[in-house]
């Protein structure tokens, strides 16, 4: 019981910390990528941006934080419905698997995109 309450307290606290970090990132992302139409929709600008190690680090961090914050938030919502335990566990397992798969896709995109600069 003690262990569970410590986990819940950590999840509650970390949800707020990741939320604050995501707001900072979202402001930066919008100012950089959406200040004009081309900045967010050009292949060359996007590839150039993801060729920088700083942006790679920031976007990988964004994927991890966003996935954690989103899945933890959905977890809270689903738990409030007080579903039967098998349904709850199945839903959560599918959600975690989806999050892991999309995290992999995001990492793969961010880490391989700059190789386009080397292609004709």
């Amino acid at each position: 019981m003690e262990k569970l309450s410590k986990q819940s307290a950590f999840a509650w606290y970390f949800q707020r910390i990741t939320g604050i970090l995501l707001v900072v990132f979202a402001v930066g992302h919008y100012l950089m990528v959406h200040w004009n139409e081309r900045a967010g929709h050009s292949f060359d600008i996007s590839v150039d941006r993801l060729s920088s190690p700083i942006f790679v680090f920031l976007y990988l961090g964004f994927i991890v934080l966003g996935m954690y914050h989103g899945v933890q938030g959905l977890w809270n919502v689903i738990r409030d419905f007080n579903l039967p335990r098998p349904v709850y566990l199945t839903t959560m397992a599918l959600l975690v698997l989806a999050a892991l798969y999309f995290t992999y896709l995001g990492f793969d995109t961010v880490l391989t995109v700059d190789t386009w600069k080397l292609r004709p």
Partner: protein
Amino acid sequence: MAYKQTSNSVSRWSKILLRYRPHPGEWAWLLHRVSGIALTGYLFLHIWALRGLTTGRSAFEAEMNLFTTPFFKFLEWALFAFVIFHSMNGLRVAIVDLASKNASKQKALLRIVYTVGIAAMIFMGVLIFLNPFGEKTVENPSTTSTGQVQPQ
């Protein structure tokens, strides 16, 4: 007779429900949950859409040409409504939660959330629909809407 009883029952329950006055914080709580679910779904979708960056210029540009149509611009603006509300209200929740002395200020903070949110929506609407700070995305004439490269 049965109809009259049902009608009276509906009328009584309607009066009870209409008497309920939700606290402004309740709407914020509900909107925070709805926008959070939508944004998590969008995060998956966004990662999926950006896969075009790994499949090549023509596929990516065809996708982006679709995203710059008026309908998708409107969706982008609607998405920003979710982003700005969830961000601002999330900060409000964190401010109230992390320092209990702020709990009494939560209504004032909610007014700030809505005011800043509406101002940001107007600003973002100008950026998205009028694009005042830049040129339009240059469409690649060699690319079709399906991303296939046309022979020159």
